[in-house]
């Protein structure tokens, strides 16, 4: 379909800037986008009759990665090798 109505995963890499231009980047637009993203994730992995560990384990893994990225500058000092 047209570019403005496609979801993020259906946008090709070259069209990404054009797609971003069509999105509303106000606070309300961002908030709406975040809400939609969370609700689609929630309804796919958590809000089911017989879910498994996958729903929250993915969230925890993402949290681990994010916190590692945030504290990378500090962890750089604890490297073992001198030359990389």
């Amino acid at each position, binding site marked *: 379909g047209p570019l403005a109505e496609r979801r993020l995963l259906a946008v090709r890499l070259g069209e990404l800037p054009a797609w971003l231009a069509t999105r509303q980047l106000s606070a309300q637009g961002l908030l709406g986008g*975040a*809400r939609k993203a*969370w*609700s689609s994730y*929630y*309804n*796919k*992995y*958590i*809000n*089911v*009759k*017989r*879910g*498994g*560990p*996958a*729903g929250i*384990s*993915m969230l925890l*893994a993402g949290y681990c990665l994010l916190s*590692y990225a945030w504290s990378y500058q500090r*962890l*750089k000092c*604890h*490297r*073992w*090798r001198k030359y*990389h």
Partner: protein
Amino acid sequence: VLHVTRPLHTTQQRLAPLPPLPEKGGEVRHGLIPEEFFQFLYPKTGVTGPYMLGTGLLLYLLSKEIYVINHETVAAACILSVIIYGIKKYGADVAAFADKLNEEKMAKALAVKTEAIKGLETAIEEEKKEQWRVEGRKYLFDAKRNNIAMLLETNYRERLLTVYNEVKKRLDYQVAMQNLKRQKEQDYMIQWVEKNVIQSITPQQQKESIAKCILDLKALSKTAQAAV
């Protein structure tokens, strides 16, 4: 973390209740990577593609020390092994328990529904019976009408009897009055006649009558003695 329920009634009007929850969630391999990723890489790299990608990425991160091995790595490894062991061993039991809770909830709701339906059906039966009973109201009203006619008749006859008795009493009174009057007149007349007769008897007549009576008695006594 936002908590948002599914959007309700955003599309056309739905004629059925809310659709039920899906049975299983999206497919996730090893509990961490969604199946879509494997499917995405399958046409280009086959089955082992994502695993090679993962191994290469891991080695790159380790060798370039983008991921630094420190005490936290050991802690993470211990925690993860314990978690995985726990999930593998007790996962099925916990899932069965949760399913049982869900089943109980559903059974309760279903029981409420069946109870309501049964109650309504009995109500329908009773209503039909009442409608059948209504047809008998003709007989009921006939009986009532008969009763009322009986009452009226009885009342009328009672009053008729009362009237008759009252009239008879008045007539009896008049008759008694007339009888009394006649009787009084008779008595008075007899008395008056007697008085006058007694007055008219002179002493001379009295002597004569007494002498005659004595003579009669003597004659009678003679004949009587003869008869004995």
